[in-house]
Structures are given as structure tokens and as C-alpha cells.
């Protein structure tokens, strides 16, 4: 029992540190990508290839003046970014990062918590994520921040519906809400994306909206709302908001890879006859590659598409994605029924 607790603590800390490092370097990669997409080099002065740039940015954010508006609600003002960061880090608990490790003949799961309602847990947590933005925007006592917060909440609610509907098809196919079962069913090349391309497509679009990434970054739309919900934030509180966005990107990439791209499975990998621990490591790297692919797609889209107008965003969510998702659910149901 003690070893179990120690193992889980270690795993949780490892995943926490991993998400933080990945988020840190995503900021650099994002800027590099932005540069390359625009025929520039991107940051390359701090260390070789600009590798120390995230560190420099982090230190800069820590040393910036801690400015707080007079009229702000102090408690909620601090709660906003803390909540956003906290919730962004919570999601990774239910993701299976690889097959079991075997130490001293005993199997250790590479999943912090194998909850039997894994998907539900992730969606519940992601939905709470919007509270951080709303609280922050409201507590700032600034009209732009409030507008950003209102936009964030309505956008999240609209896109969460379509997102959940596209997940229902996966649940219908798998017959389980556990992330572990969903990954286990996608053995080899039997990935869900081949059966649910429309579901994947809807999920991808909604993931952009959920993480507030371009072209759905209306809550922090610079051209209209100064900085949106984080207009009044400075120093590391602002840093937390920006950082949480990158953690969310990483986690949503992991969720998409797990639900649609077969998680840590790769065709032929289990037939290589690797020892369990090496196999677990390689599988983890496979999952990581898939997450990286999603990270690239996030950045690729961001530096290609302009921002949506607010009514277009709502129209797309309610009039296109939700009906499409419902249709997808109905068709999946019919096909499953016919195959029985």
C-alpha cells in the first residue's frame, strides 16, 4: 500500500512537471512557428536556438510590477488565475500515458487515476475551467475584461455541447466511460478516427474553442477588447493565464490522441517483443508524438486563420456543429443497432 502511494505520488509529480515543462517550451515553439510561418527566424538569441527564452520570459514575468486595480475584488482577482492554472493541471490525472510498468513482477499503471467515468471527469474539469476566466474578468472591474469573460462563458457553453455530443459516439462504440477501456479498444491501428471522422472533426474544432485558441480566441481578442479577460492582470498572474492556455493545449492534445488516435497504441509496436518497461516507454513516446502533432496543428491553424466574428462563432457552434454532432450520434446509433 505504501509503495502504491509513493508510486502514484511520483507519477503525479512527474506528469505535473512534464505538463509544466511542455507548456513552457510550447511558448517558445509557438513563437518559433509564428516566425517560420511568416518567413522569420523566431527567438534565437537566448541560448542556442533560443532554448533559454522561456526561462527568460518566466523570470521577466516574476519581476514585473504586481499591479492590481483599486476597484478590483482582491480575493476573486487572485482566485481567477489560480483557479485557471489549478484546473488546467487537474485534467491530466485521468489520461492513460502508457501501458503498465512492471517493477519486481508487479504491474504499475501509467495512469494516475483509473476512474470508471474518466471522460465525464475530464469534461467536468474542463467545464470548470471557464470559471477562472469569468472570475478573473469580473473581479477586474473593467468593461473589457467583463466582455471577454462573458464571451468566454457563452463560447465555452456553446462548444461544450457539440464536443460532448461528438464524444457520446465514442462512448456508444466503446460501451465504457473509462479512458483505459477506450484506449484498450484501439489496439494496433484500430483507431477511433477511422470510425468517427466527423466526430473527430467536430471535437477538433470544439477543442480550439475550449482552449481559447485562434480562430476562436475571442475572449482575449486584442483588436476589440484590449486583452480581454486578462486586461487588468500583470506579472505572474498574467503569466498563469497564458501558461494555463498552453497546458490546456497539451492536455487537450492528449485527450484527442487518447480518444481518437489510439492513445499510446501504434500498429506493430506490440509485436516487436520489447520488455514491458521499454514497451511502456516507447508507447509513451508514441503518445507524446501524437500530442506534438496536435500542438503543431494548433499553431498551424493559429497562424493561418483570422479570428472569427462573434456572431459567426455562435452560428457555427449552434447551427452547424451541434446539428452535425446530433446527426453523427443518430447514424452511429443506427449502425451499431444494425450490426448487433
Amino acid at each position: 500500500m505504501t509503495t502504491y502511494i509513493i508510486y502514484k505520488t511520483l507519477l503525479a509529480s512527474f506528469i505535473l512537471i512534464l505538463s509544466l515543462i511542455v507548456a513552457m517550451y510550447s511558448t517558445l515553439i509557438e513563437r518559433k512557428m509564428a516566425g517560420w510561418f511568416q518567413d522569420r527566424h523566431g527567438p534565437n538569441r537566448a541560448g542556442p536556438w533560443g532554448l533559454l527564452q522561456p526561462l527568460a520570459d518566466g523570470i521577466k514575468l516574476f519581476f514585473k510590477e504586481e499591479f492590481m486595480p483599486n476597484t478590483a475584488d482582491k480575493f476573486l482577482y487572485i482566485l481567477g488565475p489560480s483557479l485557471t492554472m489549478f484546473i488546467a493541471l487537474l485534467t491530466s490525472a485521468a489520461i492513460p500515458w502508457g501501458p503498465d510498468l512492471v517493477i519486481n513482477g508487479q504491474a504499475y499503471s501509467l495512469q494516475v487515476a483509473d476512474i470508471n467515468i474518466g471522460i465525464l471527469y475530464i469534461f467536468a474539469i474542463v467545464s470548470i475551467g471557464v470559471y477562472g476566466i469569468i472570475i478573473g474578468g469580473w473581479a477586474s472591474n473593467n468593461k473589457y475584461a467583463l466582455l471577454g469573460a462573458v464571451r468566454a462563458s457563452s463560447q465555452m457553453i456553446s462548444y461544450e455541447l457539440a464536443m460532448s455530443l461528438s464524444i457520446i459516439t465514442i462512448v456508444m462504440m466503446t460501451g465504457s466511460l473509462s479512458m483505459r477501456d477506450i484506449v484498450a479498444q484501439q489496439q494496433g491501428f484500430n483507431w477511433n478516427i477511422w470510425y468517427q471522422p466527423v466526430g473527430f472533426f467536430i471535437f477538433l474544432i470544439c477543442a480550439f474553442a475550449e482552449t481559447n485558441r485562434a480562430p476562436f480566441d475571442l475572449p482575449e481578442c486584442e483588436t476589440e477588447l484590449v486583452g480581454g479577460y486578462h486586461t487588468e492582470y500583470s506579472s505572474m498572474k498574467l503569466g498563469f493565464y497564458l501558461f494555463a492556455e498552453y497546458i490546456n493545449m497539451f492536455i487537450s492534445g492528449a485527450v484527442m490522441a487518447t480518444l481518437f488516435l489510439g492513445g499510446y497504441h501504434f500498429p506493430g509496436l506490440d509485436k516487436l517483443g520489447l520488455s514491458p518497461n521499454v514497451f511502456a516507454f516507447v508507447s509513451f513516446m508514441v503518445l507524446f508524438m501524437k500530442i506534438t502533432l496536435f500542438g503543431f496543428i494548433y499553431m498551424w491553424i493559429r497562424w493561418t486563420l483570422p479570428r472569427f466574428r462573434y456572431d459567426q462563432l455562435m452560428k457555427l457552434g449552434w447551427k452547424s456543429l451541434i446539428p452535425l454532432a446530433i446527426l453523427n450520434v443518430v447514424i452511429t446509433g443506427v449502425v451499431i443497432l444494425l450490426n448487433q
Partner: protein
Amino acid sequence: MSKTLKQEKMNSLTNRSKIVSNKQMNFWERIYIPAILKGLGITFVHLFREKVTFQYPEVKREFSEIYRGQHVLKRDDQGRERCTACGLCAVACPAEAITMVAAERKPGEEHLYREEKYAAVYEINMLRCIFCGLCEEACPKEAIFLTSATVASEYTRDKFIYGKELLTEPMDPAKRIDISKRQTKEVLEFKKDLKHKHNR
């Protein structure tokens, strides 16, 4: 008037103009996805394009031979300052960046100053200067020229006021600044005129 416009339908000169229409988008245009994919393709190609950035301190951009950068106050063949502090450059300067104080040459200073009058103080405020080159054009003594050197950055404003010690070219003939590329054909032709021989 309007009738003639209607009758003579404008012929375009380039064949590149398009007639504006409010045509309805078809299904594929309305769902935007083909357009988005096309856009993604374009940005993807740009990932591998040659970068246009100059890595500044390591790589410097090549300047034109007649680039208008920091000024130089020329000396003549014998190393005497050409400037006579006539003030025409200051008058010509649209940014009013040039100031000077004239002084009379004392006996025994003939090796320093070319003519009886010289500029004791000659200052250009590099923050005011717009590097238009009108001073160069106004100068009757071919004393001031713009060079391809760039003005260095400083931390304080007063360091941008360049005096004679920064502007005058070195005495050493080997370190003289070559401005021959900047002299136009007309100037060289003008210099052939013996009437203006004193100017050479």
C-alpha cells in the same frame, strides 16, 4: 456626362481589373473548409521558405554606395578642413539639425584650415537629422558629405549631438573617407571649370 460614361464602356488598360459582383457562395465556399485547407497549404509552404531576416550584428545588410548615413566633414589633400562656416548647410537643413560658430584663422594655422574663416564649433543633432542630404547639396566647398556609416545608438540624448571631433575625417591620408562615388557627373564637370579652381 453620365451618358457618355454609359456609352463608352471603360476599356481596362491592364486586363487585370475584375467586375465586382455579389454572387451567392456555393456550398463548398459556404462551409469554408476548402478555403481553410488552401490557406493551411500556403502557410505550410512558408515554413520552408528562406527567411528574410538579417541576423543583424553578425550579418550586415549591404548598403548602396550612395547611402545617406552619418555625415563627414572633409579635409583637402593637405589635410586642411574645407569648411568655411558659411552656414549654407544649416540654412538648407529642413530639420534644423546643424549649428555652427565661425572663427577667423590666425596666422600659423594655415595647415589646419583651408580658408581665412573656419568653423570653430560644428554640431549636428543626429536625432533631428533626417538624412536627406540637402546639406551636402548646399555646400559650396564640398566640405560635408553623407557616408554609408550608421549613427551609433546611445543611452542619452545629448550624446547624439555630434561635434567636430566625431564628424571631421581623420588627418591620416590612409584613413580618409572616399566620397568619390557620391559626386555626380555634373559636379565633376563643374569642377573642371577653371573659374572655380579655388574650390578644388
